[in-house]
């Protein structure tokens, strides 16, 4: 006889644990109610689609080759890169907006005590909030894949590049979502949580971009006769760190290595003295680093929520 216990054992639905999270269920219902979710999705696709159209028009004019024909490969790469950049920009600004009010909003609507008195574990609360917000961001990213795929019509872009871009965008969204939930747990005011989240994100973007540009300029300006391989290693690592901390520079350098060296997971670096070394591709370092950081922020958030009001 089938009992609730063995029914749950034989269930093959991998989403079952997620859908049993009461907070995730409630949030998903709340998020998808009314026209708001569909309006945001439509506006997002209009913005990405509009930019893609403009880029196509501008790109066809700019990528004529010597025979007077459009250079399909270059146009495809430009279109693909631009769509990903726009998606990255939108994800950077949309994700915190969904998560920064997640827990502070419970305080503001005075429902936080309702959840706390049920003895709901903190990790379930944080996971539910994060999952529901990220599920929507993932929906936005998936919805834009057809626009990314337009690049296939012109060539110059592989399926691997789309997968890598999606991974980097997902890792970015997961990290930014975690930052939003963390600040939301730190304060009872959504406005304050939003400000703290965006300031942190802006600081990360500015510092990593500036660091990558400076390190690159120094590496480019190295004089082979005077520089030692030791100092070049230090600069290479510093540049690598800054590049891999920023999603845009990560994507740009990954694409550069893919085009120049045709390698997906590693790239070769040639020192000024002629020796070479093999290093992991920036997207791998970026994804691993931000996923690990996300886990750390997740646990910091649950730890903070465990603290009882003073």
């Amino acid at each position: 006889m089938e009992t609730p216990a063995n029914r749950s054992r034989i269930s093959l639905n991998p989403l079952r644990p997620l859908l049993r999270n009461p907070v995730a269920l409630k949030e998903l219902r709340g998020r998808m109610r009314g026209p708001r979710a569909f309006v945001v999705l439509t506006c997002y696709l209009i913005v990405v689609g509009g930019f893609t159209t403009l880029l196509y028009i501008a790109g066809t004019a700019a990528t004529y080759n010597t025979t007077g024909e459009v250079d399909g490969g270059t146009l495809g790469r430009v279109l693909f890169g631009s769509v990903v950049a726009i998606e990255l920009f939108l994800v950077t600004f949309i994700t915190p907006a969904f998560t920064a009010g997640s827990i502070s909003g419970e305080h503001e609507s005075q429902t936080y005590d309702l959840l706390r008195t049920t003895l709901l574990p903190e990790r379930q609360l944080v996971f539910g909030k994060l999952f529901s917000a990220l599920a929507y961001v993932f929906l936005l990213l998936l919805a834009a894949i057809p626009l990314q795929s337009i690049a296939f019509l012109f060539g110059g872009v592989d399926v691997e590049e789309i997968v890598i871009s999606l991974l980097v965008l997902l890792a970015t969204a997961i990290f930014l979502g975690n930052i939003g939930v963390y600040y939301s747990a730190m304060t009872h005011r959504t406005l304050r949580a939003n400000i703290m989240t965006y300031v942190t994100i802006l600081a990360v973007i500015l510092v990593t971009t500036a660091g990558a540009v400076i390190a690159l300029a120094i590496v480019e300006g190295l004089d082979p006769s005077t520089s030692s391989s030791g100092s070049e290693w230090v600069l290479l690592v510093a540049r690598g760190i800054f590049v891999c901390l920023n999603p845009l520079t990560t994507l740009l350098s990954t694409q550069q290595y893919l085009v120049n060296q045709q390698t997906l997971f590693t790239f070769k670096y040639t020192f000024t003295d002629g020796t070479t070394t093999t290093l992991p591709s920036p997207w791998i370092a970026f994804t691993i680093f931000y996923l690990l950081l996300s886990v750390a922020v997740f646990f910091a958030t649950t730890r903070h929520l465990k603290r009882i009001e003073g």
Partner: protein
Amino acid sequence: MATPVIETEGLTKIFGRLRNPKLAVDHIHFRVEPGQVYGFLGPNGAGKSTTIRMMLNLMHASDGKALIFGEDPRQKPEILFRVGSLVEGATFYPYLRGWDNLKVVGNSRGGFDATRAKQLLQFVGLVGSERVRVKAYSTGMKQRLGIAAALLNNPDLVILDEPTNGMDPAGIREMRQFIRDLAYKYGKTVFLTSHLLSEVQQTSDRVAIINKGKIVVEGLIEELLNQEEQLEAEVGSIEKAKTALQERWQVAASTVPNEHNKLRIKASRNDTPSIVRRLVEQNVDVFSIAPVRQSLEDYFLEVIGDDFVQPNSSPLSIGGTPHA
């Protein structure tokens, strides 16, 4: 001796320790025995909700402890699975239906029992409204849903913080019945805070009156209110009556608003003929005289003094209960 359901030992809360510290709860001690309906009374800001928040581990105690079923929830939070609570008003997710709100609460507690939820909706009189979004609920309906949510896990202790807040007289009467049923029909222990004193008087077995963070008085209602007999007289002139009687008896004007020609006399029922004779001799018109049982409100006002401001006066919350 059975383990008390709630026992506080020097429970204290100080807000703002460094700058301008405010003593919200001051070393309070009380015990709630199994099966009791315990009223926790006090004016606004007296420390009632702070005490409940500390009991439910929603707030740190600055000193002392609150034991629930003999366990400290700070060390053993799972003891709170035996507690159902309605804290500082019933707040729910307005965009979800009543039924879905119950599901959120049930699942957050580890599992939603639809059969029990249906029984509870029947118990609180919300059958038919469970498919309506909570934003369309009246305050009374939300409070009733709050009670249903508090009872979902079949708790042994039910903590209700101002359960009649914002309810109309009919709703208050229903709530009184719910509370009575919880204790006397279903054997739950109920810890109740309210500023509607007549409600507490009619539902509770034992009360504690808290003022400025301190428990001023604590005991069985019957014992607190039956300490002395009183008579209430309706007379033509309060001043003349006072002058006529105060040689022999202690007299005071009634504390009931809009009853300016009534006075309370600390005397037994057997003194009635003497009092009437005395008033007639002194040419004071007597319209009625009857023994009265001191109401909890009278007692509360006597204990709290001028600190109490009735925040939500309703016909049910004021007035003594004369016994003919």
